[in-house]
């Protein structure tokens, strides 16, 4: 197994895959963290921003809409990740592992 790990570590395709995966993960994670923390900070420091109704004809406030939007955003981001991972990462990973197995 150790030799296999060495072989994979020496494969530039492995590092390209790890980079691509980490770029996607941190990119989406960053969007998520920033929006969620923005929500918490607005509640903490500027609650009035969320207290406004969406329009003059409704009682639904910006806060309620933002809450719904955050949950939908979270689900959508996981969707993006899984789509990308299924589309490309799995096949690339398999190719790298197979090559390492053959080489050892």
């Amino acid at each position: 197994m150790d030799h296999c790990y060495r072989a994979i570590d020496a494969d530039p395709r492995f590092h390209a895959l790890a980079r691509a995966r980490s770029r996607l993960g941190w990119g989406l994670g960053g969007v998520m963290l920033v929006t969620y923390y923005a929500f918490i900070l607005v509640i903490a420091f500027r609650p009035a921003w969320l207290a406004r109704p969406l329009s003059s004809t409704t009682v639904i406030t910006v806060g309620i809409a933002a809450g719904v939007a955050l949950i939908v955003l979270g689900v959508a981001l996981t969707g993006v990740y899984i789509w990308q991972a299924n589309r490309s990462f799995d096949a690339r990973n398999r190719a790298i592992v197979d090559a390492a197995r053959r080489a050892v």
Partner: protein
Amino acid sequence: MTPVRRLRLPPLVGGLLTLCAGVAHADIGTAIHNMFSLPADMSHLKPTAVVMFSIFVLISLLITWWAAQRTKSTADFFTAGGNIGGFQNGLAITGDWCSSAALMGIAALLYSYGFDGLIYSVVPFGAWPLMMFLLAERLRNLGKYTVADIVSLRFARVPIRTLIASASLAFVVGYLIVQMVGAGTLISNLFGLNYEMAQVIIGGLIVVYVAFGGMIATTYVQIVKAVLLLSGATFIVVAVLLRFGFSLDGLYQAAVENHPTEEAIMQPGGLLPDPVNAISCGLMLLLGGAAMPHVLMRFFTVPNAKEARLSVAWAASLIGYFYLLTFVIGYGAIAFVMKNPEFLDAKTGLIRGGANMAAIHLASAMGGDLLLGFISAVAFATIVAVVAGLTIAGASAISHDLYANIFRHGKATDAEVMRMSRIAALSLGVLGMVLGIAFKDQNIAYLIVLPFTISSTVFFPVLFLSMYWRRLTTTGVVAGGWLGMASGVLMLVLGPTIWKDILGHAEPLFPYKYPALFSIAISVGTMFIVSLLDKSDRAKQEIAAFEDQYVRSQTGLGAEGAVQH
């Protein structure tokens, strides 16, 4: 989560002493008598609720019987043999995540505080995408049975497992008390059964599920419960929206007219008293939610990283959907329960059974006895299933981490570990009952802060840094983990909830309700500093071992029980 309110608890000694003292103070004879006696007034027994709950119990016992035939090895016991599919696991995770607090607690918060209750729907949900992007696949690729397996890949076995297993048990016991007390109270309201009897029923069921059916039974019971919970909640929401011709604005308008604070229920208020608490609470929910041991354990029940990813995607979607339903259920309760004399105490004018009953009363208002019975059974099933999930997480910490790996130095046979797991499940079941009875009639909402503080302070930093930071060493993990946990518990005890409200001191010694921000800083800071200062040979080996661990975490090569192709 339910709001932390004034406690009617005598000023006992803090921490574990409180538990023991509580048992001693309660009249044990009365407790035991109550345990086995039927309620004097049988008219409180709600037939529809009892019938539906009995059906659930019957199905769950059949599942357990079926699972017991398939539980032959420790791998079956702890991880269902790694044979659970992504969708099934997603449902089971949803079940583990959505405790009764998710349905009744959030409805109660919304009913009392309006918008602020939504914070407890929206913010914890953020843990899911985070788990997907940063943890899920790596966890599956590195793990075997428990969280401690991941961390002990490159760190010293004994100190690391001691830390993680202790933290897991503290987490499990804290969470267990909340669930057991919630269950007892609920059941006396719903079924008319007495509190002690409820504890015995739940404790007994859990021991049977976990000891005989292991992870297979726990998973399928959890799946049944998740389906019941999601369909029950959907049913209420459809019924509520039907009354307003599916106009959300109509519903919210009605809620605003009914609530004493009117428009304020649509706006952020004072539930999070100041920015530091808000930030700390947010951090606790986000990171703590992403690293709960009974949820993380589920990643080891699927065959590979791809299925782990799929489970998170399903869990995130289903949990997100459920939280969106709470937006309607909470305000629905304001609209239909708050001014309805049927659900109010004739003397005080307050909601019967407390705010936690808001969702249940709403079910009754929407669908009469039939829906009331169904939702009551769902609530009970929810508690039973969550307690089972916690119990198996606790049992694995005891039998796999402490017994097999530390006490027996990895030399225990499969049969011995299985026996120890069953003993552990039985002990946890009994402990749950005892604590449930000891904490009867006490407001234990603050106890939910303890497990979340532990998971955000210990599990998340340890897992995250061990996967992402090469320089982390055993000494760093151990120092940071213990210091973080100890400081978190200390700040909680000295804080406003325990020191001031429970123990009755005039001023808290630590000013914030949520210590997570500080305890995380202490644990992560210590891990960084101590690891960097660690120049031992052991540390050099651990740093060198990062490479192999990294390759395995990325590719899944060498993962236990993983299907490579």
